[in-house]
């Protein structure tokens, strides 16, 4: 817009402050450039900073997003050495006790692998069952235990004339819930002076029977025969 005619500039006494500061005369270009620069300097700086940050973000290694279910690796998530696990029933009585040299828990299959285990299970009727082996594989809650190498399960008898019953084999598979002990390898069942061997066997604690499979052999010491002990 064209400036007003200087002849009309007789309004000396009139307050013209509403019109804002008097317009400064034009500055040389470098001064103006400096002014613009100093005016816009913070903006430029911020822009530079933003650019740098943006650059930084693109360079940063992208976090692998929530990975899909990782392929379960058969690795123990916790191990225990020279341990003892005790499990108590609701009434506070000791139900099972597991001792061993080393224990490894595998999360993918939720199994426990124990070296040199010694199990002790006390049934509701007070019947104590002991088990031991070189290596054991048990599922999460210990209701199914497989014993390998020199496996031995001993069920204590109820009274004097009920001597403890012992199973000995290279492999024994004990099911606590259905109270069975099974083996598909040659097994020796010993009670008192009687010893029975078979190629495989299944012991059912509920019906108190042992099904012997394959060829069977037995030896009965006649205690009454005055055999010198």
């Amino acid at each position: 817009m064209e400036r007003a005619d200087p002849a009309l500039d007789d309004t000396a006494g009139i307050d013209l402050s509403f019109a804002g500061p008097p317009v400064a005369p034009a500055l040389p270009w470098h001064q103006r450039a400096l002014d613009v620069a100093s005016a816009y300097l913070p903006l430029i700086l911020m822009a530079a900073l933003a650019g740098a940050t943006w650059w930084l973000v693109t360079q940063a290694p992208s976090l692998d997003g929530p990975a899909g279910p990782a392929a379960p690796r058969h690795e123990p998530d916790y191990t225990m050495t020279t341990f003892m696990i005790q499990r108590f029933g609701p009434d506070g009585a000791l139900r099972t006790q597991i001792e061993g040299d080393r224990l490894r828990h595998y999360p993918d299959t939720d199994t426990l692998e124990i070296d040199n285990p010694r199990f002790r299970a006390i049934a509701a009727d007070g019947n104590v069952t002991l088990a031991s082996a070189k290596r054991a594989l048990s599922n999460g809650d210990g209701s199914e235990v497989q014993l390998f190498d020199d496996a031995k399960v001993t069920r204590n008898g109820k009274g004097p004339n009920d001597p403890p019953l012992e199973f000995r084999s290279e492999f024994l598979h004990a099911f606590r819930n259905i109270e069975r002990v099974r083996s598909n390898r040659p097994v020796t069942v010993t009670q008192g002076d009687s010893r029975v061997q078979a190629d495989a066997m299944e012991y059912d604690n509920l019906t108190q029977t042992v099904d012997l499979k394959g060829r069977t052999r037995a030896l009965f010491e006649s205690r009454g025969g005055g055999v010198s002990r």
Partner: protein
Amino acid sequence: VKADRAKPITVEADLPGKIDLLNQFVVFNGNVVVTKGTMTIRADRIEVRETPGGYHNAVAFGSAGKPATFRQKRDVGDEWIEGEAQRLEYDGRSDVVRFVTNASVRRLRGATVADEITGNLVTYDSTTEVFNVTGGATPTAANPSGRIRAVLAPREGSAAAADMAAAAASAAASAPPLRSTPTLGTPR
């Protein structure tokens, strides 16, 4: 043989068996052979039961074609007692063997049959070496009348035995010698 009393009983079988812990007995199946000292019992199925006193009784079940058989050496000389029956009960404490139904028990001197007793029920007490036999109505091939039948040979070394041996020798000269089967188990 008296020495058998103290000997352990060993059992061998081919087919699956069962142990019943409540009643303390073990069942064996398939060509079962029970040996105790010089005594051997063979059958298709044998149950060995432990008596509270710690003795073991065995009940041997023969099948129709194959009776349960028993064989034990006697203390005196080279004499064996052999017997068979549909069912054979051996009592470990009193050492008595009961041959039940179609029982026939033989006393052998070496390989020759000295005495033979057939009847329905024969009990043989190996400590006192006494047989007693009760007759039964069931006639068998060997014993059509079902009554007790005993064939007794004269005692060895007695005069009668000598005469019989002489007679037998002359008869044997003509007839082929009778030989009883050394291994048992095949039906007579």
